[in-house]
């Protein structure tokens, strides 16, 4: 297991390198520089600024300097938030994004698995069809449509929940963003759970378990749970990526000062280092979480050997 983890981490290095290279080039290819503003700076001042941030060096040198920094954990200074380093900004904003994303993931799993299981146990009944129709809707509506709709319904018309971040504090302001972020994932997870459980319930070994006279609870919890959850597990990777990208939209809609918010602002302000830093951070995060999913896989299915 340890050898497997190390090998996978080593294998991730070229991937991450390409991500950094790609992001670096894309950011530089965008028109304009970090200090282009309405007010034209005096040429001398601009040259000083560029020199201070090493922007006057040739591109390959800049890239190497950046990679070198990243390797030592230094993402460089932010061009937009002048007094902060990118590392500080990430450290400040990430906990909030993590909380919202994590809660959304947990909610999606809890709701999705229970809805899928309920549907699978009564296949082709009205209940099953209802759950599946709802989840189909959930899959087809993107986050940026769901979020404003939720705000309209529960925030504005019904006025049950706060719609923004700045207003009244407390837990209640988390509800709408977390739900909006979770909904599309609930839908996917419900469908996967349903399909997985139905297939498992038709398998020969469940027939054996029935023939042994096991009560339904044992059948489901002891025999069917693990194999039925395997497809859900394999969806966790894409789900995590979905929640990460979704959070960029959600934080914008609800005005949450999380990492997604910084990312968008960074892109708008041509804050090279901030955008790059967040891309590298997210890419690393996704690699690590996928590794965790694979390890979880092996604990769930004894036939999988981590080599």
């Amino acid at each position, binding site marked *: 297991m340890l050898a497997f983890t190390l090998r996978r981490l080593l294998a991730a290095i070229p991937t991450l390198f390409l991500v950094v290279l790609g992001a670096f080039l894309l950011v530089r290819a965008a028109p304009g520089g970090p200090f282009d503003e309405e007010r034209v700076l005096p040429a001398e001042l601009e040259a000083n600024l560029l020199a201070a941030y090493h922007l006057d060096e040739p591109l390959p040198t800049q890239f190497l300097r950046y990679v070198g920094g990243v390797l030592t954990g230094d993402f460089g200074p932010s061009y937009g938030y002048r007094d902060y380093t990118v590392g500080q900004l990430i450290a400040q904003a990430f906990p909030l994004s993590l909380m919202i994303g994590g809660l959304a993931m947990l909610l999606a799993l809890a709701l999705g698995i229970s809805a899928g299981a309920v549907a699978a146990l009564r296949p082709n009944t009205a209940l099953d069809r209802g759950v599946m129709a709802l989840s189909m809707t959930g899959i087809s509506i993107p986050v940026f449509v769901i979020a404003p709709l939720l705000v309209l319904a529960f925030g504005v018309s019904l006025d049950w929940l706060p719609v923004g971040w700045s207003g009244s504090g407390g837990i209640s302001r988390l509800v709408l963003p977390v739900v909006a972020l979770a909904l599309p994932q609930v839908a996917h997870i419900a469908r996967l759970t349903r399909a997985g459980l139905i297939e498992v319930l038709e398998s020969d*070994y469940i027939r054996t378990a029935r023939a042994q*006279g*096991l*009560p339904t609870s044992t059948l489901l919890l002891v*025999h069917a749970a693990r*194999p039925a959850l395997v497809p859900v597990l394999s969806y966790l990777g894409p789900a995590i990526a979905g929640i990460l990208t979704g959070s960029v939209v959600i934080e914008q809609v609800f005005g949450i000062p999380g990492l997604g918010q910084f990312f968008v602002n960074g892109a708008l302000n041509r804050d090279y280092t901030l955008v790059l830093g967040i891309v590298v951070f997210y890419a690393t995060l996704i690699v690590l979480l996928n590794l965790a999913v694979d390890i979880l896989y092996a604990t769930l299915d*004894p*036939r999988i050997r981590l080599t």
Partner: protein
Amino acid sequence: MSLLEVDALTVRYGADAVVDDLSFALEPGEALGLVGESGSGKSQTALAVMGLLPATAAVGGSIRFAGTDLRGLGRKAMNRLRSVSLAIVFQDPSLALNPYLTIGRQLTAILHAHDLARGPDALARAEAALADVGLPDPRRQLAAYPHELSGGMRQRVMIAAALLGKPDLLIADEPTTALDVTVQAQILELLDRLRDHTSLLLITHDLGVIAGHCERMLVMESGRLVESGSTATVFRAPEHAATQALIGAATDLAVDSPPAGDSDFLMSADALSVGYPAGRSQRLAAVRELSLALRRGETLAVVGESGSGKTSVARALCGLVAPAGGSVVFAGKRLGATLAERDLGLKRRIQLVFQDPAGSLSPGMKVAEIVAEPLRVHEPGLAREEVRRRVEAALADVGLGPEYLGRYPHELSGGQAQRTAIARALVLRPELLVCDEAVAALDGSVRARLLARLKAVQANTGLGILFIAHDLAVVRQIAHRVAVMYLGRIVEAGETDAVFGNPRHPYTRALIDAVPVPDPLRPAGRNSLSGEIPSPLAPPSGCAFHPRCRWSEPRCVAGRPALERIGGEPRRVACWRAEDPELVTTPG
């Protein structure tokens, strides 16, 4: 009172009655055989008794167990009877055990559910049950997962699970069909020994299995009971055509004479070795310096238990794995090690058919497209009508009419799917057909017809067939020559008649002995082979068969006997004692 009384049982799916007006009774302590081909309704009967039919089945008639009407019971009441009064062992232990749970967990779940034992008690009982069915080191096996056990061991676990609640009736539905012949004999013996006071309903398509183990038997065809009586009587004077066909399929062991005259070899392998990496720094030697040759128009069978390396031979010949050593010559030319190194023309001339027909046909294509596909790859210039003609001819070769052209794989039975797969191989007019357990999944009579078709194709075209199989009855039906493999080497090879009629290697003898004989008056396959094939990772020293050989001597442990001709015969045997008078004259 009978233990089990089935009266006018009918099972329908839509308009199709799969069990039609079936009545029979089973007495306490009795062993009753229920025979028929697949689709005859015998498994549906078993499921009906266990209350396991799907909701789509419409059931009529009554099933009484010790006087209780099972069909009137609710789910809870039925659950209480299962395991404790009624238990079942299914056909394929690799599917019937939950791959995600340890053996111990699956066994203790039964004890918990029926309040038979809890905690350490339950574990102790599970361990004792595993010991009863002859599992070595039962305590360790409690923590093992099913995939860590061999097929025979898994079926032992299934039997242990079924007998855990000490049921009055045990239903065994094709309990040995998925197993090697030597293991089959062990499992049947185990069922006999363990059932003690438990009544047995033994369901099978193999009359040989019934003969040694059941006093009375029933024969089903298309859902109906067509014959019943004492096993001896039914065997001596089968009345119904279905029974006669079943007995025929089991006893038809005639062999055609090998093709006369020309002896140029179509294919020969010399000192072929195949290995696979097995974990860190280890290599599993599946085939060790094996040599064999095949003439045009000849069928050579390679037989052995699973783990003998026979499938690896097929895969190496077809270029699916690169051999670790040795060479293969085909039609005078040395073959490249893998498919990538062979040119397209050569690939066309060697075709392979696998065991699992359904898995090898793409579900979205019609039969016509499936069979035509190889032509598109290998003979792209062919006109449409010509393709159609070739496809129809290939299907006709395997006995499928043009009405199958438009069907999809899921609309085919197992036999039809396998015939489609064979047609797909034959459409290219290959010179060598490699069949890897290609008929293993088929019923007796379906199989016999298919083999007859293959023989006809062979007679017309001079096709060479390499036939990989574990079923000796099938090999007798089709092979001119046979090579018996054990742990990666050939231990005996020769004309089929000579090898089967007068086996000289102790392993060949044991294999033949283990085949259930469809004759109730002869003892059931004497199980002269104990244990299972050792791991190829650590083969025994000297003669690899020595730990299981009843003739073994010190020199067998010390040195490996070469595969050599014996007497003036063309047959070759690898045994120190092949010509030892004691071994030659002792029967069995």
